[in-house]
């Protein structure tokens, strides 16, 4: 208005009478007011339209929602519900509007609800309002109590509190959860059982290999020791040592192809056959031939076994031996220092029937040693994937000097440990030492 006064002064230069000036002011003011009112009304209408559109949109969303949306006032009275609410609880909206929300809750929650509301309104300490979802129980029209997922927020409308609850029916989720928990429990149980069985099997397997050294303390004519260190719990390597009669000691070492339980079962079968065959067959090549034929029967699973076995005549020191695809053993009996023994080359056991094997003989004198092993020894790897190798084994034995059957094996095991520097063991490491002491 100050600008208007200034303009009036400039234009009329004081030639207006007081009445004229005042009337002009009134007219101008009226025009301003009219224009302003018009603009304000237009703005208000625009806002109203926006607000109506927004309401419509919310209403349609609310209507389409899968979740139940319930609006209650601060006394817990239901003001609006959406169609999902009707479906979820089994009521028509007019049965719900105007009633207390507690009708949708089972006891004891229904009775406690008014109290909760009051407490919140007085203390303003939210327990579930505005917080993350809560799992609660709801009650349908037919009395069914079901699990629901609830989120509550507060709105202030004209100074009064209103509460919006969004509810998801969790019945199906709960069923699925239960199933999953059940399945998980069954799996756990199965795993435990399997592990237990595996441990039992390992123990049984270990017990099959003679390990109660010295095996024949009364026999001073020989000193024999063996060890098998499996790569995993269940191994495929085996050895056997037993007196066939007072004069003959049988030794054998073998390697079943494959790993795990099936290898262990085959190993057990092979050892049993071996012991049985040695009852009435005293020539190693004949034992192998018969063993091979036995193993070829029912060999659908492609089981192959390498085996080296020999019989020591305790009185004479003759050691007769035969081989089926196995690593040649070492001895110092031939030339005074350790070297690989000549072996008759034959195919592994279990490949085909009626294979002919051969026996060879080496004369042991008191102090001589025969050392048998499996490829877990020579194929032990270090981090750089270098192999322990035949050469390293030979060198170790050559420099071993005077040792007992047990200390030789301990020496080789220690050296393998050192060489592999903690690399994971990939194959069973098995060794058998026969030290002849003479009569």
């Amino acid at each position: 208005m100050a600008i208007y006064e200034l303009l009036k002064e400039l234009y009329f230069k004081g030639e207006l009478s007081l009445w004229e000036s005042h009337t002009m002011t009134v007219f101008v003011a009226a025009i301003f007011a009219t224009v302003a009112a018009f603009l304000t009304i237009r703005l208000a209408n625009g806002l109203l339209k926006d607000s109506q559109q927004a309401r419509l949109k919310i209403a349609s969303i609310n209507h389409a929602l899968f979740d139940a949306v319930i609006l209650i006032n601060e006394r817990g009275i239901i003001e609006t519900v959406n169609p999902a609410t009707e479906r979820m609880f089994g009521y028509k909206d007019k049965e719900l509007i105007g009633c207390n929300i507690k009708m949708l809750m089972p006891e004891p929650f229904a009775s406690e609800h008014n109290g909760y509301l009051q407490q919140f309104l007085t203390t303003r300490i939210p327990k579930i309002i505005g917080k993350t979802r809560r799992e609660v129980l709801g009650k349908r029209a037919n009395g069914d109590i079901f699990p629901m997922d609830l989120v509550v927020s507060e709105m202030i409308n004209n100074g009064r509190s209103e509460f919006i609850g969004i509810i998801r029916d969790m019945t199906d989720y709960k069923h699925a959860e239960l199933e999953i928990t059940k399945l998980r429990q069954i799996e756990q149980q199965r795993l435990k059982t399997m592990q237990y069985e595996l441990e039992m099997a390992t123990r049984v397997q270990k017990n099959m290999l003679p390990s109660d050294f010295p095996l024949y303390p009364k026999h001073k004519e020989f000193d024999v020791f063996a060890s098998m260190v499996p790569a995993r719990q269940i191994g495929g390597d085996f050895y056997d040592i037993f007196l066939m009669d007072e004069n003959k000691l049988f030794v054998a070492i073998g390697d079943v192809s494959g790993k795990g339980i099936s290898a262990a079962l085959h190993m057990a079968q092979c050892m049993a056959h071996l012991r049985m065959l040695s009852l009435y067959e005293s020539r190693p090549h004949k034992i192998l031939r018969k063993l091979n034929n036995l193993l070829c029967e029912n060999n659908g699973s492609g089981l192959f076994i390498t085996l080296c076995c020999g019989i020591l005549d305790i009185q004479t020191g003759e050691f007769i031996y035969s081989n089926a695809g196995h690593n040649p053993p070492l001895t110092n009996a031939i030339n005074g220092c350790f070297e690989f023994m000549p072996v008759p080359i034959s195919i592994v056991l279990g490949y085909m029937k009626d294979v002919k094997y051969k026996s060879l003989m080496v004369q042991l004198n008191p102090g001589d040693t025969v050392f048998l092993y499996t490829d877990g020894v020579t194929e032990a790897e270090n981090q750089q994937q270098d192999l322990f190798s035949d050469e390293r084994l030979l060198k170790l034995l050559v420099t071993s000097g005077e040792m007992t059957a047990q200390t030789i094996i301990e020496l080789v095991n220690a050296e393998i440990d050192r060489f592999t520097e903690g690399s994971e063991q990939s194959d069973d490491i098995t060794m058998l030492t026969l030290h002849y002491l003479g009569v």
Partner: protein
Amino acid sequence: MEINCEQLDGNIYKINLKGRMDILGNEDIDLKFSGMTAAPRKLFIVDLSEVNFIASIGLRTLLLSAKATHNRRGKIAILNPDSQVKKILLMAGIDLVIPIIDTLDLAIAAMH
């Protein structure tokens, strides 16, 4: 481990293996090897020139396919293994059932 198969004249299939034939390597090629040496194919040359190590699990794979091949009256040969691998093959007596041959020409000749 890697494996591939090529067909030569006269229905001879040459299977080329590459890498270490240990437990893990064998797992890589086991099934494929069986597939490549399955019926009705009968003549196989297994090229081991690029295999630098073979463990008993690898021997088993070779023996199994040899057994199956011989049962079908087919033929299988091993081509040109390196000295280390050859040593292991000889020790296991593999050459008694699968001939080990140095050159491709001789291997092809052995198929007839």
